[in-house]
């Protein structure tokens, strides 16, 4: 082997072979890393019956009954859309199994009577006993007299990424 070829082989091993060994190490190490639980997908919301939901400030919550929630996840960050309405969007986070989101809403005529900012707050937990079930509450921001309303949401469309695992 000529000295040029020897130098080429040495450089190739150093600059290509060694990094590839590093890649193998990274892939091995990475298997132990835990990513946030996936909540991506379409969920169906069921609000528990409550006499308080007849209050004007809470009409927006009752309007969400049976609506579909689309959750788009990027790590811990969540982008949530209610019923395909572009005005009903929320940004939230997931910490372990707990999910929180602030929902921006366009106040309806009934809600205009309320002295609130029209926004809602969602707090939920992934049910440890059942797969694809969220249990939590929806509350009206800035309305101390409005009690939080309980809800349950079930994952409707299986997340393709979850299948791809």
């Amino acid at each position, binding site marked *: 082997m000529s000295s*040029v*070829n020897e130098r*080429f082989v040495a*450089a*190739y091993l150093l*600059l*290509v072979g060694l*990094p*590839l060994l*590093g*890649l193998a190490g*990274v*892939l091995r*190490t*990475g*298997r132990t*890393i*835990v*990513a*946030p*639980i*996936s*909540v*991506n997908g379409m969920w169906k919301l069921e609000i528990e019956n409550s006499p308080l939901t007849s209050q004007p400030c809470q009409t927006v919550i009752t309007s969400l009954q049976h609506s579909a929630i689309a959750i*788009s*996840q*990027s*790590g*811990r*960050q969540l*982008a949530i859309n209610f019923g*395909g309405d*572009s005005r009903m969007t929320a*940004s939230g986070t997931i910490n372990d199994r707990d999910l929180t989101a602030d929902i921006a809403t366009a106040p309806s005529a009934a809600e205009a009577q309320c002295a609130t900012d029209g926004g809602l707050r969602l707090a939920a937990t992934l049910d440890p006993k059942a797969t694809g079930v969220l249990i939590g509450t929806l509350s009206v921001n800035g309305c101390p007299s409005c009690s939080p309303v309980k809800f349950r949401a079930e994952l409707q469309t299986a*997340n*393709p*990424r*979850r*299948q*791809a*695992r």
Partner: protein
Amino acid sequence: MPNLFTLVLQIAVILALCRVVGSLFRLIHQPRVVGEMFAGILLGPSLLGWVAPSFSTYLFPSSSLGFLSALSQVGVVVFMFLVGLGINPKELKSQGHAAVLTSHVSITAPFVLASFLALYLYPRLSDDSVSFTNFALFMGAAMSITAFPVLARILTERNALSSRLGTVAIACAAVDDITGWCILAYIVALIRAEASSSPMWMKLSGIVLFGVIMIFGVRRLLRGFEAVYRKRGALSESLMAFMLLLVLSAALCTEALGIHLLFGAFLMGAIMPKEHHFVRYVLDRFETVTVTMLLPLFFAFTGLRTNIGLLRGQEMWSYCGLIVLVATVGKLGGSMLASWLAGMPLREAAGLGTLMNSRGLMELVILNIGLDVKVISPALFSMMVVMALVTTFMTTPLLRLICPLEASVKEPAARDVPLPQLSLKSSNTPAA
């Protein structure tokens, strides 16, 4: 049925904006295609959807996006065929050891750095429905790609396609893209196979068999096109239609095999005969409609999926900055170091690294595949689009700074000049 009025209106608006922004970018010495990529982002939720949400919903109702996506995908299928057509791996052989080393390092360096970055980003921007291996491999493939057509366009505009820098860059980019697409095909096959009932070995066997048939069987058939062209100086409409049919058939085969439509189209282009005049002739026939009309639709569709608004807060922007940094260090730094060690003068080596760092619309194609197979999240998609725009945008000014035109070393006349490339001009600017 699509709402025809909405669809035609969308196409008109997209084409108009792409022309305007592309022309503006030409004024600042950027390739038109960079402006068109940017125009796509402007039409999405990052700008139009943010400042005029009602108009955005009127112009791009969610029910219409399927048709826009289908049209743009057809454009990308033809585009990938043309990219494959312009690639000739044999060019690497004529460049010797230096180009082989540079080419391979320009893949491994960004790939490995991206996988290290994946260790940090996986728990922050992904979720447990994606395995770390798929995430890291995808990040590696996405960061190691080079925008072959954009690179060729920049070199053409500098009249440097036949310079030493140009020939090495084209050869390295060709190998990078072939390797990158092979890795990506593997990742997509892996992800889709995990989700399907048929075993992985069956899929892989099918893919290998398809590759063998294409390379050793269909390739011989394709020589017939070149023979007819040599004899008559042109190909009949029927032959052109047959060629397009072969491209679509190959695309359908790879889709059915569980990889992606685009791989078949790319492979068909890569195994086409590489005689210069023949390549130029085929490019001229397909290029105009693809580059002028269909690619802007793809840019707009990508823009509609890109939401810069998802990068909320300092934390998300720092991830984005980190992605740009790692992509640049890996690709620019890796290519530069390897070519310098292989004997290229430092300035020229830096120029080569800068060219290789241009990712352009090839990156957008890969990112869209990643988002489709859900291996990357919407926020990471947006960050990677920003990275693609930044690394492509920085190429021309950095190259002018590092490697002025007079510094380009011309290749000896005996060397083969690279194949004709997609001009990506879609304007009246004559190709060099």
